[in-house]
């Protein structure tokens, strides 16, 4: 048994997945857990989950694991939160979507639309006489890259969506939810990924 737990000290991107009831005010309750500690939320997405009535938040922050673990516990403590997971980028499949609006005439004069689309994995969502709207979906580098490409052509407007992520080793929430609905939940429901990973401490 040891108390020396080597924790990576450096900050990195963490993806926090929160399963919740669909309740007004919960977004604020979760957001203030970050703002209270002066932690910036890099990306926040709310969406339905695989289960009707259960919502899912995807939150991205740049922090150390120690901080993320404490935040996850504080979020999970909220009455209407069912479960919180956190993962590094390596543990998830993630995507962000971006839209770019550029003037049609300059694109037509100076670059081939076809080349832009092909090289950047983009597609044209709208082509009008005055402007074209491109769309890409991918990792941050990919969506950032097209900004650089389009900037010389007079990028009029750019917007990127929040990150959505699927957890690689997740079996979904259906089975867990049934446990939650029981009055006497199994151990499974209260498991905490962090504690279970602390092998030295929690398994002898």
């Amino acid at each position: 048994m040891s108390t020396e737990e080597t924790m990576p000290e450096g900050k990195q991107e963490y993806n926090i997945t929160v399963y919740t009831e669909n309740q007004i005010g919960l977004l604020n309750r979760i957001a203030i857990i970050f703002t209270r500690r002066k932690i910036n939320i890099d990306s926040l997405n709310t969406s339905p989950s695989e289960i009707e009535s259960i919502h899912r938040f995807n939150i991205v922050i740049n922090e150390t694991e120690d901080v993320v673990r404490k935040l996850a516990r504080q979020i999970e403590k909220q009455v209407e939160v069912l479960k919180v997971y956190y993962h590094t980028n390596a543990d998830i499949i993630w995507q962000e979507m971006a839209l770019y609006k550029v003037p049609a005439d300059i694109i037509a004069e100076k670059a081939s639309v076809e080349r832009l689309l092909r090289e950047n994995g983009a597609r044209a969502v709208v082509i009008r006489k005055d402007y074209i709207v491109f769309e890409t979906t991918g990792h941050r580098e990919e969506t950032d890259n097209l900004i650089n490409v389009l900037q010389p052509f007079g990028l009029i407007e750019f917007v990127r969506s929040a990150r959505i992520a699927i957890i690689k080793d997740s079996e979904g929430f259906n089975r867990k939810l049934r446990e939650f609905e029981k009055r006497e939940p199994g151990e499974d429901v209260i498991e905490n990924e962090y504690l279970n990973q602390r092998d030295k401490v929690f398994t002898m």
Partner: protein
Amino acid sequence: MEVAQQDVLTAPEAQTVTEMTGSAALLEALLVEGVDTIFGYPGGAIMPIYDALYDYKEKLNHILVRHEQGGIHAGQGYARSSGKVGVVFATSGPGATNLVTGLADAQIDSTPLVCITGQVFAHLLGTDAFQETDVINITTPVTKWNYQVTDANEIPEAIAKAFYIARTGRPGPVLIDITKNAQIQKFDFKGYTPCNHIRSYRPKPIVRPQFIEQAAQVINEAKKPFILWGQGVLLGSAEQEFKAFIEKSGIPAAWTIMGVGAIPTDHPLNVGMLGMHGNYGPNVLTNDCDVLIAIGMRFDDRVTGRLDKYAKQAKVIHLDIDPAEIDKNVQTTVAVWGDCKETLPMLTELVEQKQHTEWLAKFKEYTRQEEEAVINAELRPQTGEMTMGEVVDQLNQLTNGDAVIVTDVGQHQMVGCRYAKFNNTRSNITSGGLGTMGFALPAAIGAKFGAQDKTVVAIIGDGGFQMTLQELGTIMQSGVDVKILILNNRFLGMVRQWQELFNERRYSFVDIQSPDFVQVAKGYGIAGKCIKERDELQSSLKEMLEHKGSFLLEVFVTKENNVFPMVPQGCSVSEIRLK
């Protein structure tokens, strides 16, 4: 906590449907929840509830306070002395915002409260209507849960959830904001069923026996084990289980100011108070023990001092009901999640019967040093002005440790907690986490309603008393019997002490003037007395305690006395100063 069941209202088969207003349904719900006392203040947006209350006067004792902050502190005092949920009513806007300090206090000190606030009509929400504030968003960070009701049909379920959430798991304050239309609206009331399950809410983590076994093994191998206990023992009603555990394991135990009273002050294994102004031994020996067992406490910075020099040599076992507390401030070796009422007996079963005589003697030796350097002079000064400690010590001799002691915040609070004698649980009521000056007077009123058979003494400084002294009006009108003991040092003493020690005696705005408190009390029809001489002390305390009804005793104490020992901010607990 027991819930009174009303068969007619709760029997699912024979459901009777009664048409009633949202307000009446709220009061019916309170009755089923066993509420007997409400602290509140009416106003425009909560008028329908007060109108309904007119017909419930016989069943629900409503105490009209003088300010909503007084109302919520009274609710806290009630909850803390009785172990039940405190109930508070306030109107919208300023009524609701005046609750915020009390909510924050209850949140950090885990006090179960259900606060009902009136709100403007639902169709006016967001229009900057008269007395409209966004109460839900203002109170979100300082409540365990809050909810806005805009339709009477929501009331039974919202109230049921509120009580369930407030009192279960780690307790806390809940606020229900009810729009005026929902209070007036008639609906089909199908009876009130208390809540006992919310699928997204796990009040207690499941106890895992393997961690209990690990903890027991660590304890059994320990040579110098040390227990720290907090309010969790009281909140879990686990005083007996705690006593059995320490008595079998023979481990010395020290308390946080929220936990004091779980075992009597003079229990041989009770080695004293932790923290910044705690006892010498418990602080120094925290950095000497080999196993630290924390039970229902949260390693507040006022307890730990400098964290990177806190008990680094020790293995740490932490028993707590709130998983978010584990590893929050101090890294644990073994975490025992769960309600200590369940986990302590399991642990007691596995620990060996022991006596740590030598180790305990070390605490005694530090006690002797502290008595010599600090305590004797504080409790038994022969000359000069009276000291705060001396007053508390004399009070002990008269109450014999059976009174409920409510303290405010500052020097007198530390002195009160250090020296007051407690024989019983739930008899020290103080604002521990938030440090809310002005807490004591209203909290004492609530504490008396929650423990009618006890003598309630509010020990208050001259500064804190002036923050909520309007509640003397509540005492006058309700006739509640509260003994008010003002320790007047003509200073905001704790800030002055810090300015003396750390700011080169630059006394910046700590010199506070006070009115003639006895005259003020007299204006409210409350008897009082002010003393400045030692030879009057005992007889005056006696007079206060024996007086029928409330009594205010003001005692002039030394102006520039410091509370010692002290762990200066930024220092380790073992760097505690005796002077």
